[in-house]
């Protein structure tokens, strides 16, 4: 019994797809586009998150001191800084070292003389934090220490990156939602057309007492086939596209930290598959519902 019914249902679904082939193809296409957008958005956001995280962890705090400190005072201060919570490392660059570094980068060896013997550089500590989220707190605390003239860290840049990803997330969600909505509409339209062309059959099915589930199945299968086909094409595009992109970035832009985690990529592709099937199922149930009221 189950086998005969399943065969009947599958046959109906395939016939429907064939009968309105252009509408079916258009539905598949919108599903593919929405899912490509969905997959790309998720992968892109994962990568920006990864970039943000990497750069965050490389964030340094530069502490410039006010007046002439003696060696002992400097090493006392360094110890004080090292004892602070969340501080990973403290590196001292003395005023003299700063001059040498500057001369080295400028290719001159007479900077001090040129400036009339006055060293314009302050002593400087370069501090890294154990966690990027602690940077701001540490910086504020150091600011309060007497003798500290200026504290500088990646103020702004990080916020900008985070703001950008937030903004991008919303744009991504909006665009994906809009396209998903469009594909829902198109799948519904193509299924409704098929419901209409089978109106007589449905009428007879209801008349002889076929269950609602039985009447719905072919349309559900039809929606699932559209969603599934759209998803498979999208998975192919995103999967191949992303692996090509990874290849490209790893060989030519190696400094960008990409997400190459196999499991994660597979999960994204699975998400696309499930979303496609869900779209098909939801669209078909919505479009058949109106026709099957008792």
């Amino acid at each position: 019994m189950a086998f005969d019914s399943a065969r009947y249902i599958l046959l109906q679904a395939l016939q429907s797809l064939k009968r309105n082939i252009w509408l079916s193809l258009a539905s598949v296409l919108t599903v593919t586009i929405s899912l490509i957008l969905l997959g790309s958005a998720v992968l892109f956001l994962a990568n920006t998150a990864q970039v943000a995280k990497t750069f965050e962890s490389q964030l340094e705090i530069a502490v410039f001191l006010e007046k002439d400190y003696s060696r002992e005072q400097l090493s006392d201060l360094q110890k004080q800084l090292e004892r602070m919570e969340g501080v990973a490392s403290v590196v001292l660059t003395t005023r003299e070292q700063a001059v040498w570094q500057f001369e080295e980068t400028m290719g001159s060896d007479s900077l001090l003389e040129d400036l009339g013997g006055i060293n314009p550089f302050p002593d400087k500590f370069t501090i890294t934090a154990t966690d990027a989220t602690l940077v701001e707190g540490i910086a504020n605390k150091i600011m309060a220490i007497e003798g500290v003239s200026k504290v500088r860290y990646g103020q702004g840049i990080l916020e900008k990156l985070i703001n950008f990803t937030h903004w991008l997330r919303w744009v991504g969600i909006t665009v994906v939602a809009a396209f998903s909505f469009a594909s829902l509409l198109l799948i519904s339209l193509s299924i409704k057309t098929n419901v209409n062309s089978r109106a007589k059959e449905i009428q007879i099915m209801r008349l002889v007492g076929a269950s609602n589930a039985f009447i719905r199945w072919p349309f559900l299968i039809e929606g699932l086939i559209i969603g599934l086909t759209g998803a498979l094409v999208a998975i192919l595009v995103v999967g191949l596209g992303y692996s090509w992109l990874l290849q490209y970035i790893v060989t030519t832009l190696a400094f960008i930290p990409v997400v190459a985690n196999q499991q994660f990529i597979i999960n994204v592709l699975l998400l696309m598959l499930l979303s496609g099937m869900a779209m098909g199922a939801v669209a078909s149930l919505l479009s058949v519902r109106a026709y099957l009221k008792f």
Partner: protein
Amino acid sequence: MIKLKNVSKIYPNGARALLNIDLEIDKGEFVFLVGPSGAGKSTLIKLLYREEIATRGQVIIDNINLMRLKPREVPLVRRNIGVVFQDFKLLPNKTVFENVAFAQQVLGKNKKTVKENTLRTLELVGLDRKMASFPSQLSGGEQQRVCVARALVNRPKILIADEPTGNLDMENALGIMELLDQINKMGTTVVMATHALHIVDMMKKRVVRVEAGRIVEDSKGEASTIGI
């Protein structure tokens, strides 16, 4: 078998199709519904297979109160009722056999049962030799026989027909009536709405006359026809 208690049907647009109908039909009866156009015959018939729901009153079929039926129970009730219409409602791209088999397939019956039942029923209506034909290759009478076969193939207790002879010439109409009589004699309760008064006269069955939504005459218990 069929019981209507104080049933009224008012359509959403305000049309008062049936008013305070009381009607009882026993198992094995053959009942004609007659009356002028717009009297409410089709509406009454639609209440029986729950295509429409009564606005007031109770409709009870085989001890099941249709007013209390949950939507998902509707198909189960319909399996007990065969319905035949004036326009044949056959699927044009299916053969005679497939049209009749369809009614069982959609109930999930297995291939063997479907085949047996279909052949048996086509034999009953006298169309076993035409089972490979398409509806367009059949006469009106033959098409209506296919519909009767389809209505009967799931062995319903009740057969409902709304002007089944409306599109047929006299000869074919009589053939269908003979068939319905035969089915009735096999134990199926038959309810038929019709304008064909000569047929009603001839059959000598119970006649319920509806006018403007009310039952104005019922020949139950009388041996012969009522004045028409």
